[in-house]
């Protein structure tokens, strides 16, 4: 059979953001693939050096649409550590609430994308319909469905009142029922299993070698979660489990993400029941003393890493962002070896790419 090179991207119905894959096929089997990033590179790190710390909160949120809140949380956390500020408990709880809601939103969106890519349009419609519940809550609280602009240096900008709390309780109950239905249907649906089982396998050694993080790593047996191992915000006061699976294929990643959604709903319920009273922010000086800080957080796709070096001024001297998608992208050419063309869509959807995060 002759070799055909199929370009997947930069524009392709399979990809939500531009990414270039050149897949070499022999018949229906993939023999080689090359990866090219950089189509959405905006130079965020260089831009951040020219803006003040307060202006950077606005910039950092726009690295990615789906994980915008976790980026600004990590950034604000690091600047607050440099300033020596202590955010009041209520502010921390509101930050965590939005982090968990964003996690639910991201995983439901991802489930829709995976289902569409393997042809199961019904599950795509159901997952995105349930995602609307979460988007409604986030819009009520912060005013924006996807980009919230809730964090400021020193705390949060919006407060949660009684109306929000009752809306949250109703919506979370409804969401629990729907997500458990989705979990049952994924576990039992034969056509879903036929398309995702034993596809895109990554062993634990590969995970450790490539330093992969997030649900992809946890689905292969690596027990790592920043919320539990190095708690930030107020995660050490909450009670949750970190799901773990060992099969390492796309099916395991799907089940794991839905289990994480269930845990996130549990965290949200705890947050709204234990919300402490008090102020939501402290005022922050504009000039940040010299120093370095490293902070990490658990984004929906894994560990997000920030390093800030400040000289004694209003603008950072160096801001370094490392997003989790960059770690999973390294594993893709390996996963795509000897896979059929029809499985390429399942594999690429299974690692949950957020190219805007990876390119910055």
């Amino acid at each position, binding site marked *: 059979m002759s070799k055909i090179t199929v370009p997947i991207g930069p524009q392709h119905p399979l990809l939500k953001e531009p990414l270039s894959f050149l897949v070499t096929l022999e018949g229906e089997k993939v023999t080689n693939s090359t990866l090219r990033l950089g189509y959405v590179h905006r130079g965020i790190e260089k831009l951040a050096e020219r803006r003040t710390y307060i202006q950077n909160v606005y910039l950092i949120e726009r690295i990615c649409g789906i994980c915008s809140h976790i980026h600004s949380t990590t950034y604000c*956390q690091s600047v607050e*550590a440099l300033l020596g500020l202590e955010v009041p408990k209520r502010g921390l709880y509101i930050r965590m609430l939005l982090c968990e809601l964003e996690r639910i939103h991201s995983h439901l969106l991802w489930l829709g994308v995976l289902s569409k890519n393997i042809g199961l349009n019904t599950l795509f419609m159901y997952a995105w319909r349930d995602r609307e519940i979460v988007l409604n809550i986030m819009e009520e609280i912060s005013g924006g469905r996807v980009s919230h602009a809730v964090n400021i240096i020193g705390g949060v900008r919006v407060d949660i009142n009684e109306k929000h709390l009752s809306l949250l309780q109703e919506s979370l109950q409804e969401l629990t029922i729907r997500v458990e239905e989705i979990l049952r249907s994924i576990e039992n649906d034969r056509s879903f299993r036929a398309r995702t089982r034993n596809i895109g396998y990554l062993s634990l050694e590969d995970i*450790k*070698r*490539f330093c992969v993080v997030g649900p992809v790593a946890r689905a292969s047996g690596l027990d790592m979660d920043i919320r539990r191992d190095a708690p930030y915000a107020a995660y050490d006061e909450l009670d949750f489990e970190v799901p773990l699976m060992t099969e390492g294929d796309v099916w395991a990643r799907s089940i794991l993400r839905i289990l994480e959604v269930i845990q996130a709903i549990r965290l949200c319920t705890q947050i709204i029941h234990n919300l402490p009273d008090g102020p939501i922010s402290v005022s922050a000086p504009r000039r940040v003393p010299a120093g370095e*800080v*490293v*902070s990490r957080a658990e984004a929906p796709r894994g560990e997000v890493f920030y390093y800030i070096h400040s000289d004694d001024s209003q603008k950072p001297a160096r801001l370094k962002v*490392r997003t989790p998608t960059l770690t999973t992208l390294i594993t893709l050419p390996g996963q795509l070896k000897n896979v059929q063309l029809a499985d390429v869509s399942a594999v690429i959807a299974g690692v949950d790419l957020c190219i805007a995060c990876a390119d910055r």
Partner: protein
Amino acid sequence: MTIEKTGIKLQEILNLDRSSKKLIPLNEVEITISKQQILLAVKTILKSGIWHLSAITCQQLENEFVLLYHFWKSGGLTLLISLDENNLQIDSICSLVSGAEFYEREVREMFGIEFLGLPNPTPLLLPDDWEGGYPMRKKEPASQEKSNENPLQDKGKSV
């Protein structure tokens, strides 16, 4: 082994004095080493059970470049290496940690630091026909002076 013990072991093996280690916020231990010691340091770290490399950062200060390797295992360990601006070369750690490839490629294209032994030294984020130098350096502009027209575009004809 915990981060504390690994830090102490590194100081022993590499003969570092007490001032090379300091604590920075959010639970991070930073150890300054010289660039020849990088491979030995990474081997020691891997042997003590810390295998997760979070990122490789580079920064340009007044007359030197600083490379930071961030490791993590329930606590962070950062290796700080200072490079003289006339000799921007260092050994690549891709043979020890395969996941470092993307980070080293990015540092190479953004700052111009040569990693000896990097398996795939092609640009990661910048386009293939970039002519603007090393964008993240202090004196460089952030964009290149070139038109946006794509010479490879074929303007076809309609049927």
